[in-house]
Every structure is written in structure tokens, then in C-alpha cells.
């Protein structure tokens, strides 16, 4: 019996998405850019998917572009908006806790102006606003942080960006499908596999008023050179419709996250539960255990049937720990990152909480760190 608690960016495929994907393989396998009956049928499915995304995001269908995936969306959004504004400047203002793809794209496109965050991971809004000015090509602020769950002040940020006439890119990859993202954005990226879609498609909404200049070789579809996967787009739209229809208020996962935060702090010695305690995503929770090797902890939990993520350096191929945890100034080793899938049960969470203290003690004991 496995318990999957690592749904960020890759949730278990929603049953409705699976069904829609299989149906689209039958009906939408053709190239939607071709004008015969088969191509037109695929085109109809693709257009319907874009309409669904547009409606869910509060955008016009013409403003919704499909891409090969969330990382591609972010790369293209940063590159295309900054290129269109290169006469204004090349500065891209962003908090230190943006997704690595955004930071890399900002560095590639121009001058990345990185703004600090507080211990909870929330952007220093005053510093961010002070940095977004006349020579800024693009302002960036994620809707919420997918690693620690903290929500960002996008409304205040967008008001400033509008006044400064600088487009605001909002990475809503961890939020769409889980919370309302509102209308405080000029460019917004959403990630279908995060809400139960099938990997292979990303959603990028660009307000009609935002100028873009695509980067790269000429192609009929500059946001997805060569076209997108129609079945993946159809599945992503079907999953989004389903999760929005199923969504309860409040999200039952919020109570489970609160329970995890409270129980972990109470039952695991020397643990730091990170992220904002209240203004946060309903399904993401992260904590770090002092003197614990993150890789060993993940392995021990995996052997007991629990799949979790981690931002610790020892769980990645590089020596560097999560840049998000580092920017927050919290412990980076012994990190456990949880994103609850929507069908998680209280029993599964309780079972995880029941084994965690002994697993942490076991991993600490193995390196002789007990009692330090």
C-alpha cells in the first residue's frame, strides 16, 4: 500500500483526465494544423481545451497559449516579454524564491534583479516595488511558492506594476486548480500535471495588452514550435473542469496541512516547520529536521510506503540545496516537502505522522546525532 504525498507539479492523473486522454487518442490524434476532416476534429478538441483554460483563468480564449510544459511556458514568457521591451530596458525583477526555470530565464534574457524574502518566504514587497521602475522589462511574482506553500502579495504587486506600466508575470503553477488565482496578472502560467492532467502540455495566458516578441526560429506556433499534444491538452482541460467542480470550500486538505504542521512540530524534536502558517496553499507543507540526511530520510520513508519530496542538497544531483529554503534562511538539510494529492485521506496523513518520529530518530541514530 503506497501513499503518495509528492503531488507538486506531478499529481496522480485524475480519472477524468485519463478518460479524456484516451478518447482524444481516438478522436484527436491528427495534426490540428491540417485542414482535412481528421485535422479539423483535432483542432476542435484543442480549441475546446483552450476555451476551458480561458474560462477557468478569467481570460479570453485568444489570450491562452498552449506550450510543451510548465518550464517551457516560463522560459517563453520571460524571453518573449523582455524581448518586446528591450528598448525600455533589460531588467527582470523577481523574488529569490521563484522557480529555478524563471530565474534561469531572467538571467538568459537580461539582468536579473533578485529581491529577498522573509523567513516565511514572502517577497519583500517594498524592495520589489522599489526595483520595478522605468527601466524594468518584466516584473515577476509567483502566486504562491510550490515548495513551502506561502502565498505572495500579487494584488499589491500588480497594482504597482500597472502604475509603472511594467507587465507582471505570475507563475501560478502551484496554485491553479487548488485556489482562485484572481485577475492580478498580465502573463500567467499554469501547470496541468499539477492538478491531475497528463504531462506534455503547459498553459500560458498573455493579456491582449501585453506585447510579446517570440524568441527562436520562426514557427507557425511560436509558443509550441511544431504544435502541442492534443490529448494532453484535452486531458488537462478535463482535469481542470473536474477539480474545479469537485472543489469544496474550505479545501479539506487545508485541515490536514494544519494537522501536519502541528503534529510534526509536537512529535519530532529539533524540527523547523517552514512557510507562512496561515496565508498559504491548502495542500503544500514543508519542514526540515536538524541533523538528518534528507536522502536517507526519503529512502526510509519510501521503504515504509510513503513518497515525499525534499529540497535538501543530498537529494539532488547538485551540491546546492533548495534556493527557496536558502533564501528564507531556514534549515536546508533533512527537508521533507509534501504536496497532498486531492484524494488523500486523513488516515493516510495520520499513518505518515505515526511513523515519522521513529523514522527521523532512526536516521539521526545512524549518524550518531541522537541527543545532540
Amino acid at each position, binding site marked *: 500500500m503506497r501513499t503518495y504525498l509528492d503531488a507538486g507539479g506531478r499529481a496522480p492523473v485524475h480519472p477524468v483526465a485519463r478518460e479524456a486522454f484516451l478518447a482524444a487518442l481516438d478522436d484527436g490524434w491528427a495534426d490540428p494544423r491540417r485542414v482535412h476532416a481528421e485535422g479539423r476534429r483535432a483542432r476542435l478538441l484543442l480549441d475546446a481545451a483552450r476555451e476551458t483554460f480561458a474560462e477557468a483563468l478569467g481570460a479570453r480564449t485568444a489570450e491562452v497559449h498552449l506550450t510543451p510544459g510548465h518550464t517551457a511556458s516560463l522560459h517563453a514568457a520571460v524571453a518573449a516579454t523582455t524581448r518586446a521591451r528591450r528598448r525600455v530596458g533589460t531588467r527582470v525583477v523577481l523574488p529569490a524564491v521563484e522557480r529555478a526555470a524563471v530565474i534561469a530565464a531572467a538571467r538568459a534574457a537580461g539582468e536579473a534583479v533578485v529581491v529577498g524574502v522573509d523567513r516565511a518566504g514572502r517577497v519583500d514587497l517594498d524592495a520589489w516595488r522599489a526595483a520595478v521602475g522605468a527601466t524594468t522589462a518584466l516584473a515577476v511574482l509567483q502566486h504562491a511558492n510550490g515548495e513551502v506553500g506561502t502565498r505572495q502579495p500579487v494584488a499589491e504587486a500588480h497594482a504597482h506594476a500597472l502604475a509603472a506600466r511594467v507587465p507582471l508575470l505570475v507563475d501560478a503553477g502551484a496554485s491553479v486548480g487548488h485556489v482562485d488565482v484572481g485577475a492580478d496578472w498580465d502573463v500567467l502560467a499554469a501547470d496541468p500535471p499539477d492538478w491531475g492532467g497528463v504531462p506534455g502540455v503547459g498553459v500560458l495566458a498573455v493579456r491582449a495588452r501585453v506585447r510579446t516578441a517570440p524568441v527562436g526560429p520562426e514557427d507557425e506556433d511560436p509558443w509550441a514550435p511544431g504544435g502541442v499534444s492534443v490529448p494532453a491538452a484535452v486531458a488537462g482541460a478535463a482535469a481542470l473542469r473536474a477539480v474545479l467542480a469537485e472543489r469544496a470550500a474550505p479545501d479539506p486538505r487545508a485541515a490536514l496541512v494544519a494537522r501536519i504542521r502541528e503534529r510534526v512540530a509536537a512529535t519530532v524534536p529539533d524540527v523547523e516547520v517552514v512557510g507562512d502558517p496561515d496565508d498559504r496553499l491548502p495542500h503544500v507543507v514543508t519542514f526540515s529536521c536538524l541533523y538528518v540526511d534528507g536522502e536517507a530520510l526519503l529512502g526510509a520513508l519510501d521503504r515504509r510506503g510513503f513518497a515525499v519530496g525534499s529540497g535538501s542538497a543530498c537529494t539532488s544531483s547538485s551540491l546546492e540545496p533548495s534556493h527557496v529554503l536558502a533564501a528564507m534562511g531556514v*534549515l*536546508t538539510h533533512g527537508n521533507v516537502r509534501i504536496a497532498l494529492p486531492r484524494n488523500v485521506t486523513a488516515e493516510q496523513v495520520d499513518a505518515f505522522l505515526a511513523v515519522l518520529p521513529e523514522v527521523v530518530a532512526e536516521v539521526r541514530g545512524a549518524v550518531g546525532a541522537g541527543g545532540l
Partner: protein
Amino acid sequence: MSGASGPVGPVGPEGPAPSGEVVDARGLRCPAPVIRLARAAKDAAPGAVVTVWWTDPAARHDIPAWARMRGHEVLDTVPLEEPAAGDAAHGPAWATRVRLAG
């Protein structure tokens, strides 16, 4: 090269002379540097200054986080001058001084 811990001489031309123990955690990966430091801190007197030599990038963040959780104070972090070329195998080294809670 790694693992030694005990009173030794000055940090080097760049670093201030330590007033207490030095923990050599060069070449060790997280969480080992913080564990070594915590062991030394456990045996040291309250208010003492412990210096840790480290090369692991995670230690830059985790030593201050550990100090904050334990009520200790990070005094400074400076590059560590290493006279022996053989020590360079682990990349740049740093020395961090921590004043233990009194």
C-alpha cells in the same frame, strides 16, 4: 584531512585567531558539518567561541539556521586560507565562528 576536531592554531592569514575549539568539517557533505559542530558545542563551555571549517555549500545556510534554533550567535564567516595544495580537492573552504549561548 577531514574529521579532526580539537584545539588547533590560527585559522590563517585571512581569519581571526579563534579563541576556542576548531572543528574541521572540510570535505563533508550535509548534514555532517552541522553534526560535527553540534558535538563540539555540546562539550564546550557556555559562551565559548567554536570555529568550524567547511566546504559544503549547504553549510553556508545550515550553520546559521542551527545557531538560530539553538540560541547561538554566528560571529562571522571568512574565506579559509589553505596552505597545503592537496586540500584544494574539496573546493573553497570557509571558517565560521559561533559564540555559544551563555
